[in-house]
């Protein structure tokens, strides 16, 4: 036994390469950004944005062919809006399930930010798609209908799971098509009401607020096995 190694840091043998330095703890800003990026990646937010862009292109193409008024001028844009809302709802699905819920302190805020941001992006994309053509109901009607449909998608995600969140807006769309042709007057079928109908706007806003609140607090009802 010699004393040759005395004085050297433990674990380093002569001739061994210097080990990598442990990563410095990131600042709160960088950590937050990284957390948001990872959350977005786990929810396939980028794919969702691409699908929303495709919906905007589809809306622009449809408006080129559609009449300026009538049932079809409402039905087809509404179908595209329901598709956009369904995609936003599906984005709430978490692949991690319970472990993420148990450890994710910032999860409610991330869910709130993601759902509100995606709704804003959807409204902006579809409004941009409709900007060069005549959209029956205008941008105000589009924002109202899309917000309400997104609220339904978020509520469905909380009840049935994120992956099945699309069922809510699609089923509501089927109901709305009947409401459009039969001229229902209840504000709960807001897409069948004129764009400046206050009751319809309130109902759509309430549903959106409820959806965002529920998805923020509880998140989507998901299991980690899928």
């Amino acid at each position: 036994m010699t004393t040759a190694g005395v004085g050297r840091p433990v674990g380093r043998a002569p001739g061994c390469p210097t080990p990598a330095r442990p990563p410095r703890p990131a600042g709160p800003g960088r950590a937050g950004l990284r957390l948001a990026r990872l959350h977005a990646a786990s929810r396939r937010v980028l794919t969702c944005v691409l699908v929303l862009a495709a919906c905007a292109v589809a809306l622009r193409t449809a408006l080129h062919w559609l009449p300026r008024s009538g049932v079809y001028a409402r039905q087809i844009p509404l179908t595209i809006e329901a598709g956009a809302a369904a995609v936003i709802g599906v984005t709430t699905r978490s692949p991690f399930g319970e472990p993420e819920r148990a450890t994710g302190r910032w999860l409610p805020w991330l869910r709130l930010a993601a759902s509100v941001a995606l709704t804003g992006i959807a409204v902006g994309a579809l409004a941009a798609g409709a900007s060069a053509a005549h959209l029956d109901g205008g941008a105000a009607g589009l924002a109202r209908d899309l917000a309400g449909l997104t609220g339904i998608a978020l509520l469905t995600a909380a009840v049935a799971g994120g992956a099945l969140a699309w069922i809510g807006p699609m089923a509501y769309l089927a109901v709305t098509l009947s409401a459009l042709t039969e001229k229902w007057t209840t504000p709960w079928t807001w897409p069948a009401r004129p764009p400046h109908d206050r009751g319809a706007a309130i109902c759509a806003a309430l549903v959106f607020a409820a959806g965002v609140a529920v998805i923020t607090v509880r998140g989507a009802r998901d299991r980690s096995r899928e």
Partner: protein
Amino acid sequence: MTAAPAPAAAPRAWRVPRPAGPARLLRIELRRSPVLWMLPLLAALFWLSAYRTAMNNPPFWNIRAATLQANAMLAFAPLLAGVCAWAGSRDGRRGLVDLVGVTAVPRWAAQLAAWAAATIWAEALYLAGVAVVYGVTAHQGAWGGPLWWPVAVGVAMIAASCALGFAAGLLLASRFTAPLAALVVFLALAGGAFAIQDNVKYAQIWPLSVQGPFPTDSYGIFYPYLPDLAIAQVMFLAGLAAAALGAIGLPAAAGGRWLRGAAAAVTVAGLAAAGTAVGLAGTARVEAHGIVIPALHDAASDRPVPYTPVCSRSVVPVCLQPAYRAYLPEVTAALGPLLAQVAGLPGAPVRVTQVAVTSVQAARSNGIGFGGPVIGGRPPVLYLPLSGLTLPGEGNASAAQFTSNLRQQYGLSIVDELVGLPSGAGPSTGANGISIALGPGHAAQFAIAGALEQDLNLVTQVPTGVRLPPGARGGSAGSGASAPGNQGLAAGKRFAALPEAARHAWLATHLAALRADRITLSEIP
């Protein structure tokens, strides 16, 4: 005591469990199909979109059948496509593709079992809905029998939606596949309806079109329901389903060479059937009793359905097809006053008989124009088509509205027909968009017709597209009576001011001459 060795137990054969048979596989898939959980929602949508709509209309088999084909599919097809996409992407989502790929059962067979389970649940619900709607219709005493071809189109549409969604989910296992499949089917249905509305040649193949532009109550009563278009639609949808199901058997993992060869054959056959059906739909033409596709048409469908009419006991009997038995009081009330006023005149109808659509004319925006009532035969009979009119109980229409509409629309035509005005000149037929140019010789006929209409409180406004001759009843509409128009107006007012008996006596003497256009305005008393 010896310890004799115990006889050695015969070695048991090590039995290899047989792979699950198709029936067992189907049973397992039936238990785990996601469509099972969707049934309450689908039932609610069926009630909302199909049952409610059907019951808001009179109990006619044709109206109820059309609702089961078009309305139910609008609610069912997109959601089923989405759920089946969800079912198809199950193995991919759970990361089980490699695991189940090495099982004894060929993947194609297992996938077909999953599709079949989803389709069986959806078809069961749809057929249960059909049974309820048809059962209620039969209970309400509808004349005739249920139409099964629209139901067959619905069944084929469900199978095709499930197959397309399932194939999409299988080929692209993503969380976005299900909503996009539902969205695409919704857009395809809406786009197809828009194409039908735009009179696109091949658009009739779309399953939302029951009999093209025909109103739902205008076929299948006097003549059998023409299944030509429905056959083409079933062929198209079955072809799409076969192509989608065949396509999922094409990848190498789906099975052996023979199995994949069979899948390729199914795909090609499906595409060929769908393409042929689209081509057949392009040859469809609108005829008096429905859509006819020459290659699929059965001449036996052109024979009228026998029936015993139901008649009123009024001065001039009104006889209707028994399917319209409930409307006999309304039709009699609508036409009775007019018929009583002209009863006994030469050429006036001695009976009113409801007939099928006499002539049709395709119009823009998937529209159709029907011929109006016609007086003919010896003794004269008024042949009255009721198809295309809004019947009491249809939507929000009341019996009073029906009576009023019938009076206003057909009363004018009957008066025009009686005084000998050419077909299409009257306001009711002119409203169909037929433009008739009339010469000055019909001035007396217009004046008398105007007077009778005024006396009977019929609408006398001049529709767009009808040019009136000088001296005609333009004045009676109260708009732009020119100098010659004033002559006609004055003659009409003179005649209307006469006592009813005097009018009747003059018409009894001069109606034949009036019809032959041998009466001038000055000869009108």
